C-alpha cells in the first residue's frame, strides 16, 4: 500500500491532464501517492465535496478558491492553491451569424482581440439600435477565468458586459450544442469545446485567452486547508508528482499518448485529434483558416505551475470590478493568502529545479520571453502582455482597482 492516499475531484476538461497523467503515467505512485481521481459533473459538486472532506484536493477554476475563502459561496471550506494546473487554453467562440456581422465591421480570422473586439462592439451597437435583444454569451462559471477574461476583453473594447450583453452559465460540454440551437450567441470556454463548434460548422473562434492576456492563469489545484495542515508530507509528495506529470504533458513526444489517454470515455472522452489543437496551438478558427497561437496552452512551460500571488490578486481585482466582492484591506489579504508559492517551493526544492524567487510579479510587463534569476536551473517567463497594454502591479492594487471602474 502506498504511503499516502489522496482523493482528487476533477471535471472532464482538457486541463485536468496533469492530474490524470500523475495517476495514469505513474508519477504519483513513484512519489508514494495513491491518487484516486473522481470525475464530477459540476464545479458546485467539487466545492461541496471538498468542503465536507470527500476530496482532499481538486481541479478548480483559478478564482474559485478565492470565492470560497471570501465567503461568496455556500458550503465552502478554506481552500488554498499550492500549484497551478496550467496557463491559457480558452477561446471565445461566436455563432456564424454573429461572425458574419462582425466581419462586416472589419473582423478578420486572425484572432486579434482589439480588431475583433471592436467589430463585436459595432455588432452589439447595431443590434441595440435596431431594437434587437442583446447578445447572450455563456461562460462556465461566475467565478472563472472565462467570465473575467470575457468581461475584461469586452470592457477593453468599449462594451459594458454588465449591460450591453447577457452572460449566462452553461457547462462546457453543452456549449457547442447551445450555440447551434441558438440559445446562446457566443461563449468563452476551454478547449476542445471551441474546436467542437468549429468542427460542427456552427461557430467561429473570434479570439483566444492567450491573446487577451498571454500566459495567464486558468485551472489550479485547490487543496482543503485543514487537510494540507494535517498532511504536509502527502501534499509535498503530490506536488512533486504533479510537477513531473506537468513536464511530461508539455513534452511533444508524449502528446499522442496523452491525447489517447484523455480520449477515454471516463476522462475527457473527446477524440485525440481535436485535443491536439490545444497542445500544438494550431487552431482551426473556422472558415478554412488555421492559425498558430504561441503559448496557447502551457501545462508546464513558463513556470506554468507556480501559484503567483499576482494571479490571485488579478482575479480579485476582477471580482471587485464586477461587484462580486467589496474591496477592503481584509478581502485583499484573503485573496493574497489563498495562493501559496511557499508550499510549491518547499515541495519542489529537493528536486533542484528552477524556482521563481519572487511570490508575485508585475503582470503584463514582459513583452518578450525573458530569462529570470531563480534558484537552480534557468527559468524563462513571459511574454505576459494584456491585449490593451495595461499593466497590473500587485503592489499598486488600490490604484489598479480605482482605474478600472465597471465598463471603463
Amino acid at each position, binding site marked *: 500500500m502506498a504511503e499516502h492516499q489522496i482523493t482528487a475531484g476533477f471535471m472532464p476538461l482538457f486541463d485536468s491532464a496533469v492530474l490524470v497523467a500523475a495517476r495514469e503515467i505513474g508519477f504519483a505512485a513513484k512519489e508514494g501517492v495513491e491518487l484516486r481521481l473522481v470525475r464530477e459533473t459540476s464545479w458546485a*459538486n467539487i466545492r461541496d465535496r471538498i468542503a465536507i472532506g470527500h476530496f482532499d484536493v481538486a481541479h478548480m477554476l483559478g478564482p474559485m478558491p478565492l470565492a470560497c475563502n471570501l465567503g461568496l459561496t455556500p*458550503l465552502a471550506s478554506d481552500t488554498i492553491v499550492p500549484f497551478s494546473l496550467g496557463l491559457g487554453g480558452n477561446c471565445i467562440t461566436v455563432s456564424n451569424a454573429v461572425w458574419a456581422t462582425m466581419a462586416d465591421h472589419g473582423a478578420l480570422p486572425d484572432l486579434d482581440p482589439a480588431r475583433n473586439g471592436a467589430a463585436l462592439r459595432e455588432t452589439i451597437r447595431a443590434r441595440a439600435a435596431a431594437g434587437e435583444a442583446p447578445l447572450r454569451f455563456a461562460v462556465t462559471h461566475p467565478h472563472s477565468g472565462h467570465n473575467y477574461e470575457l468581461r475584461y476583453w469586452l470592457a477593453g473594447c468599449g462594451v459594458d458586459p454588465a449591460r450591453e450583453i447577457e452572460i449566462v452559465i452553461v457547462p462546457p460540454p453543452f456549449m457547442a450544442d447551445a450555440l447551434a440551437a441558438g440559445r446562446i450567441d457566443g461563449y468563452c470556454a476551454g478547449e476542445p469545446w471551441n474546436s467542437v463548434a468549429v468542427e460542427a460548422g456552427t461557430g467561429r473562434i473570434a479570439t483566444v485567452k492567450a491573446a487577451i492576456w498571454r500566459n495567464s492563469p486558468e485551472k489550479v489545484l485547490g487543496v482543503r486547508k485543514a487537510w494540507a495542515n494535517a498532511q504536509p508530507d502527502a501534499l509535498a509528495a503530490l506536488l512533486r508528482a504533479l510537477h513531473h506529470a506537468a513536464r511530461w504533458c508539455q513534452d511533444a513526444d508524449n502528446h499522442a499518448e496523452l491525447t489517447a489517454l484523455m480520449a477515454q470515455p471516463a476522462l475527457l472522452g473527446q477524440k485525440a485529434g481535436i485535443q491536439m489543437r490545444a497542445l500544438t496551438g494550431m487552431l482551426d478558427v473556422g472558415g478554412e483558416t488555421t492559425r498558430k497561437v504561441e503559448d496557447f496552452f502551457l501545462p508546464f512551460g513558463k513556470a506554468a505551475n507556480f501559484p503567483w500571488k499576482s494571479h490571485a490578486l488579478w482575479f480579485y481585482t476582477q471580482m471587485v470590478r464586477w461587484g462580486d466582492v467589496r474591496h477592503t484591506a481584509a478581502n485583499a489579504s484573503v485573496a493574497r493568502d489563498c495562493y501559496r508559492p511557499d508550499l510549491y517551493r518547499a515541495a519542489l526544492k529537493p528536486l533542484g529545479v528552477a524556482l521563481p524567487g519572487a511570490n508575485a510579479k508585475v503582470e503584463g510587463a514582459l513583452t518578450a520571453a525573458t530569462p529570470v534569476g531563480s534558484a537552480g536551473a534557468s527559468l524563462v517567463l513571459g511574454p505576459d502582455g494584456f491585449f490593451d497594454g495595461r499593466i497590473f502591479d500587485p503592489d499598486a492594487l488600490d490604484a489598479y482597482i480605482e482605474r478600472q471602474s465597471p465598463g471603463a
Partner: protein
Amino acid sequence: MSSSPLNILVIDENRIRAAIIESGLREAGHGRVTLVHDVAGIARRIAEIEPDVIVIDLENPNRDMLESMFQLSRAVKRPIAMFVDRSDSAAIEAAVEAGVSAYVVDGLRKDRVKPIMEMAISRFNAFSRMARELEEARGELENRRTVERAKGILMRSRGLSEEAAYALLRKTAMNQNRKLADVAQSLVTAAELLGPGGL
C-alpha cells in the same frame, strides 16, 4: 403557528426518482409540488412557479447554471440560497452523500426546510438502494444464464449429465477459489474462442 403552504420545485432528470420525491413530499402534507425534468427554459418556469424550496440532484450537470441563476435578481424575484445549516455538519454530509441539495428563498425558517431536506435525503437513499438492488438482480440473472450455457457446453463436449456438469463446475470453482459464475464465464469465453460450434 400556521404558515402558508410551501411551494416546492423538484429538478431531476431522473423521472422515477423525481416521482418518489414527489410522493414523499405529498405524504408529508406538501400539496404544492412541481417536477421539472429538463432545465431548458427553467428561468421562466421558476418565475411562474415562484418556489420557496428547490430540490436538485447533484448529478445534474446544470447545477452551476442553476446556482448562478438563483443569484440573479432578473430571473427570480426573491434571492434563493443553498440550504446549509452550518451548525449541522452531519446533515450536510448526509445530503451530499445521498446526492441531493436544496435551495431556499431568503428568509425561510430553518425548521421549515429541515424536514423537507431530511425527507429528500431518505428518498434519494431509498432510490439508490433500489437501483443497486435492481443492478444486483440483473447481474444475478446474467450469472444464472452463463452457468446454464457453461453446463450445456460440458454436457455436449464431455457427454455429462446436467447434474454432473454442474458438479464439475462447482468443484472447479471450489478448487480454484473462484466464483461459480466466473468459472462458467471462462468456459463460455474459451468455447467461443475455440470456434463456432467447436465444443
